[in-house]
């Protein structure tokens, strides 16, 4: 039974192996696919769309991931300390400082998770309100 099967398979394979034009066709097909692929890649690389995208990526703002990490772990502590010190109620006797504290406090709430902005506000509060953190 097995011998019969092997013979059957050989009868299929042999004509294919003998057929040199089949191999040639395969080679031509592969060469054509490679050629078309290369042309498409070159075409894409020099296309206006690709160049525009490249230019856009160059001009985009660079992500500052270090400051994002700082925002996660350092902003809360600084915000809490500033929140207590800069609250307008602490300056209810001095009208000028009260207004400044109100402005600083509103900015403080807006930049609750922005460590760099909080640092700038800390400096501003120290200068304008005379607080010491």
């Amino acid at each position, binding site marked *: 039974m097995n011998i019969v099967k092997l013979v059957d398979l050989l009868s299929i394979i042999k004509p294919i192996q003998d057929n040199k034009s089949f191999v040639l066709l395969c080679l031509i097909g592969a060469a054509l696919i490679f050629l078309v692929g290369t042309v498409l890649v070159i075409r894409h690389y020099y296309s206006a769309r690709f160049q525009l995208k490249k230019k856009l990526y160059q001009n985009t703002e660079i992500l500052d991931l270090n400051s994002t*990490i700082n925002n*996660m772990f350092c902003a809360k502590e600084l915000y809490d300390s500033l929140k207590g010190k800069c609250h307008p109620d602490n300056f209810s006797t001095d009208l000028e400082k009260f207004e400044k504290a109100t402005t600083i406090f509103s900015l403080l709430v807006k930049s609750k998770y922005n460590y760099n902005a909080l640092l700038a506000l800390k400096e501003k509060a120290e200068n304008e309100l005379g607080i010491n953190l």
Partner: protein
Amino acid sequence: MPWINVWNNIINWFSERTERGKLIRSFNTAAREAFVAGVAPTMLKASMSKGNKEYRHQFSAWINTGFRLQALSGRPLPKKEMQIIGQAILNDVVLVRRLVALGWDTLEIHDDAGIYGCRWKLIDYISIGGMLE
């Protein structure tokens, strides 16, 4: 020609995939450096996840639409701490826009010990459509 569009879609998919990988790698590097320098008490690890189907938008990628941050804290993080980490990401509009443009639609914060995590729909935090109002 339709085949040009198909070709462009294939190229775009590959380039977006590269950009996604680059963003994850640079985030992990920044998190590792912050942890080593003592800025961050917890090491964060970014990865891609399945995402939430309900949060899909028109720029969502085919697969892996979740941006997952895993906090390697060694203890279950309380919800408040996860929210602080999440809000720090969501308040960085440039980063959120970049995440959305690269095909992510879900932000996930997890810890390494607990069972629960937090999820946000990214498209709600990119501040777009201002001119439409």
